[in-house]
């Protein structure tokens, strides 16, 4: 009798054990299915880094543009606002004229491909900026002339890869990691946070080859101008430099305008 009771109890336990295991198996299967489905869905949804970069260019790069902007430089001692107007064609030609303050008024800069010239009315000279001067800051800001000279076609110089996603100011972003293909780049590595909806970069971090963070850029106040989503405020911070960084505010921007050819000539600097 005792043996029968014992057997029954064992069966009951065995039965229970089997049921629990079956339930566990089902759970595991469900979890695995969800993970697999998520991976499949994510893979299906995540565009390649090249595609994202191409879409950014399509949104932001126009045939040409004319922009009036204010650069607010928060130095260690004082904050200064420098206003300028620039004319540009793609990222190869740019002409900038400084409008204020009085000391900078009339200073002009011309960028043609990888060459840069500067003109000041006080010297009435056109001087080519080269060598170590390119590493100098532009008007005391957190931007260097080298930053201005960089090509926007990142896929040429970098291997790009989407490494994740993150939310910035309530906007879902792809994080793209770019690693330099060659050693002669100003920044060996870059990380760009791109708005998933608008394909506008919202943050960028620039690194040295050692992995040290050199500069950080935040892009804000994204507005639709002539069908393009464009950030009208950018905050640059050279992390190696003291100070509160540099704000770059676009006061006015016009795309696809008629720009006279002389603007992009050295003669235009003296006009």
């Amino acid at each position: 009798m005792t043996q029968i009771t014992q057997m029954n109890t064992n069966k009951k336990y065995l039965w229970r054990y089997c049921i629990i295991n079956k339930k566990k198996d089902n759970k595991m299967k469900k979890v695995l299915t969800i993970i697999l489905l998520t991976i499949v869905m994510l893979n299906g949804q995540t565009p390649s880094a090249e595609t994202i970069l191409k879409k950014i260019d399509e949104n932001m790069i126009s045939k040409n543009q004319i922009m009036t902007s204010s650069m607010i430089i928060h130095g260690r001692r004082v904050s200064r606002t420098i206003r300028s107007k620039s004319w540009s064609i793609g990222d190869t030609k740019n002409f900038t004229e400084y409008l204020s303050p009085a000391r900078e008024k009339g200073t002009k800069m011309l960028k043609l491909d990888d060459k840069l010239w500067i003109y000041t009315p006080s010297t009435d000279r056109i001087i080519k900026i080269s060598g170590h001067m390119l590493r100098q800051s532009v008007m005391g800001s957190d931007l260097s002339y080298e930053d201005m000279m960089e090509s926007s076609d990142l896929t040429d110089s970098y291997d790009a890869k989407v490494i994740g996603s993150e939310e910035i100011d309530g906007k879902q972003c792809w994080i793209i990691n770019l690693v330099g293909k060659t050693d002669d780049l100003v920044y060996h590595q870059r990380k760009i946070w791109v708005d998933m909806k608008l394909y506008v970069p919202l943050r960028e971090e620039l690194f040295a080859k050692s992995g040290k963070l050199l500069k950080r850029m935040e892009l804000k106040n994204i507005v639709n101008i002539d069908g393009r989503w464009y950030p009208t405020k950018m905050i640059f911070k050279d992390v190696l430099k003291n100070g509160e960084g540099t704000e770059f505010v676009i006061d006015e921007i016009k795309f696809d305008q008629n720009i006279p050819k002389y603007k992009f000539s050295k003669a235009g600097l003296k006009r």
Partner: protein
Amino acid sequence: MIKFLLKGLIRDRHRSLFPILSISIGVTLTVLLQSWITGYLGDIIDYNARFSTGHVKVITKAKYDNSQQMANDLAIVGTNKLTENLDEEFPEITWIKRIRFAGLLDIPDENGETKTQGPVIGWGVNMLSKKNSDIERMNIRKSLQDGKLPTKRGEILISDELAEKLKVGVGDDATFLGSTMYGSMAMQNFVISGTVHFGSMVLDKGAIIVDFNDAQTALNMENATSEILGYLPSGDYDNEIAHNYADRFNKKYSNSEDEFSPIMITLSEQNGLDAMLEYVSSFIGIIIFVFVLAMSIVLWNTGLIGGLRRYGEVGLRLAIGENKGTVYRRMIYESVLIGIFGSLIGTMIGLGFAYLLQTKGIDLSSMMQNNSMMMPTVVKAKITSTTFFIGFIPGLFSTIVGTMLAGIGIYKRETAQLFRELDV
């Protein structure tokens, strides 16, 4: 007794010649090294004081924390009032305002476009005002190679090597390109009035010298300066006096909370010169110690050899009843005389070489092509009062120690065995 010992030394040259020779050589080297180190390191300190550090220097606290930065964004502002205060509170010190800057010198072609350009280090110094002119202090007049000193605003001097590199000469136009105190682009036209050669690689590679007011205008430094240098009334740097002035100033003006408050620092606190000043004193001490040690070993050996040679003589003297202590002392007295002679000869020879090095110097410019320190390219010795007696310390000390060590054997001689030894 001295006369007796002298006669003994002169008549028995084996006793004196080799020790005197060794001491003379060692003393010559000591004198030469002392004068060379004093001269060369002294020149480095003097160069730094004249061109860079002053005997004391007033800068902002932020600039002190970033002393390697040449940019003027950390310059002192409100300097007119500050120099007035300095003149009132420290009237015995000569106060000089200077602006140091870096940038490019751009040479135009006939169309006004860049022909050549090169990096430069600039000095904005007082050249046009007669009061506190830096022309003599920085030896500018004597360094002039071509042209003339600036006589009006807008004229600059450039180093002859830079002129050669940029293919420019006196009367040519040049544009300075750099950063203002606020970081904006600074561009200023100048006319080259002359070329200079300072004999220091750092300066001769790419120096430009502009008038202080021109530098202020070009770099947007109205009522501001990079640094205020102070020179002690004696003209020579004194670490203790300089520190006293710095302490007095810092107590009154320096504010640890404000990174732009002025701070006074001494020469020894700049450009690693504290280590150099310590190096000068400790190096001479090390030379003397090493020399004493080495020469003592040499003279110990010489004494031992002499002791063996004079084995019979010492034995006889002990046998006829001379006290062991007396023999030992007389040998030490002899060594004192040898030491004095050797040191005298060595000092004279050393002084001769030192004088040659002091007047002629050795040109080491070819070895200093990439040198970034502010130092003269011609190495010169300097004869000081110490040079005259420094050699006597190791000269006398090593001889006495050597003899004392070698002479210990005298006490080990057994009187009972002396006659047996003498028979042999």
